[in-house]
């Protein structure tokens, strides 16, 4: 049913995304799909990487580790944005098209009052993506 499952990852906050990562791997096993880990960063040195190349290396290593850990095939896709905090949703929606993902599994949070004014990234991706989206809330 699904061939490519895209999972956005923030390499600096992996612990908080445990549920989504495991769910994506479980779905990939069930459907024999490939998991594509998408990381969005900036060309400016950041906490995760001093250079874009370093970020790509780290994301590739992460995808390889996940493949070993869960026994699924994985890929990595590094996206770079001028302002990752505000462009994140658009980058993810574009990455889903670029990687031919037919399902996005992403971590989100429980709805709260602030979401009315400032929707979560998960809500915005679910609204705009052209494929199925599963939000794993914690």
């Amino acid at each position, binding site marked *: 049913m699904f061939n490519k499952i895209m999972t956005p990852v923030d*390499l600096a906050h992996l612990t908080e995304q445990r549920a989504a990562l495991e769910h994506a791997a479980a779905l990939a096993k069930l459907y024999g799909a490939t998991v594509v880990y998408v990381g969005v960063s900036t*060309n400016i*040195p*950041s*906490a995760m990487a001093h*250079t874009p*190349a370093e970020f790509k*290396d780290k994301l590739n290593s992460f995808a390889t580790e996940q493949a070993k850990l869960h026994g699924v095939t994985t890929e990595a896709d590094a996206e770079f944005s*001028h302002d990752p*905090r505000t462009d994140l949703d658009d980058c993810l929606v574009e990455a889903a098209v670029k990687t031919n993902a037919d399902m996005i599994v992403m971590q989100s949070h429980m709805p709260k009052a602030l979401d009315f004014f400032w929707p979560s990234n998960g809500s915005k991706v679910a609204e705009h993506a052209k494929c199925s989206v599963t939000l794993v809330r914690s």
Partner: protein
Amino acid sequence: MSEETPDTGIPQPEGNADLIDTDYEIGQDNIETQIGPFGLDIHNPVFLISGMAIVAFVFYALALPEQSGELFSWLFSSVTKGFDWFFIGSANIFVLFCLLLIVLPVGSVRLGGSEATPDYGYIGWFAMLFAAGMGIGLMFYGVSEPMSHFASSLGGTASEGGVRTDWAPLGGAAGDNEAATRLAFAATIYHWGLHPWAIYAVVALALALFSYNKGLPLTIRSAFYPILGERIWGWPGHIIDILAVFATLFGLATSLGFGATQANAGLNELFGVPIGATTEVILITLITAVALISVIRGLDGGVKVLSEINMGLAFLLLIFVLIAGPTAAILTGFVDYLGAYLQYLPALSNPVGREDVNFSQGWTSFYWAWWISWSPFVGMFIARVSRGRTVREFIICVLLIPSLVCVLWMSVFGGVAIQQVVQDGYTAAQNAPLELKLFKMLDALPLTQITSLIGIVLVIVFFVTSSDSGSLVIDTITAGGKVDAPVPQRVFWCIFEGAVAIVLLLSVGGLQSLQSMVISTGLPFTVVLLIMCWAIFKGLLAEKS
């Protein structure tokens, strides 16, 4: 889950570059926390100390207005008058340094590594350079500065006790309309051309080089790595960043306050909107609200879009004034004024033995201190949008092209206003206060209501683009160089800036005294900029080798 990836060294940015090998991890001194529904990721000492020091200074200015006013005014006067030679000499060095980088082989070094591609196209890039750099100044001084120098030059010189008391540049041009016009434009172009843009270019290049090519965080302290080494991660670096936040926030808040006063005057002239604190507070709130939307939409969706809209509007206004005014005379003037600039440049930029003390201290020294105090903000913003350019391309585009555009702007707006006085005897613009000169000049041209409205919109949107880009810069510095800190932080700085502007506006003399203080920070920053030149050169040589 602890998916740590193996450390195999830092790969090059894109193609060859000379990365600095440091153990410092970007964000290692940051505090990540949650306040209510808002996430925070702030650099511990820099965020807290900057925030508290700004509040303390505002309280000081409010609680002891006379004492603080006197202190800051004395500081400002001592700096601009006592160190005029230092400002003028240093600015010359910055221009020569930049011009040298264009011709030296190190000019081929690419920011971001040898294979990097530009982040922005030329139009978006230029629009953002102008919007952050001096857009608002062009609106207010485009008419007033050439006119002031024209009037003072025409008046000739006067002295008392052997000291010149007039404000004419150099020796003036008593009674000679043509010579006074040429001298006025030479002086104006000197203040808005190569020198200010060289100041911005030095700071921007230092930050871009040390961030994109050396892998250090995009924050002011990074440019000091060649001098301070690993100490930049400690208190020396904290103090540099705190000073930059301080100068940026107060610079923006005081400009916002003055800008509201000026926009109010324009609205009064056009629509009869009452002049007063209520209107000005509403204007600051409006500007801050639009800036808030812009920072929430981000660099591409907000700041860039607004900058491009503003650039388009400014271009339309420029073309309109050019066509509606004496077109042939303006275009001839543009070439003539450039010639006058080159002719008078050696004398205008002479740092010692000046007889025109009022001009060289009251205008030039003031301007240089002003541009320099703004340079951490504008330089950092320019650095953020300039990745992928070669040093040569960067200098040409940040130094030469904006200078030419400024010359064109001044030639058109100032040229029309001076023509109105000389040819038509229309003196409304000449006699109007600073904030109304542009509108009075437009009064004598067709479609006044439309062009004046565009003028007011431009003034307001230029303030928005300064406010939003300033908030991004302050947020990045107070997040230890992280550009991906939570959005509520930049929202906080944007609102804080508006709030400080309102408080200062409502206090007696608060805006004036704190602006004096900000300009006084130009002195230590001049030393900083001179050191940066050396750091850039050393950094570029390492890239080349």
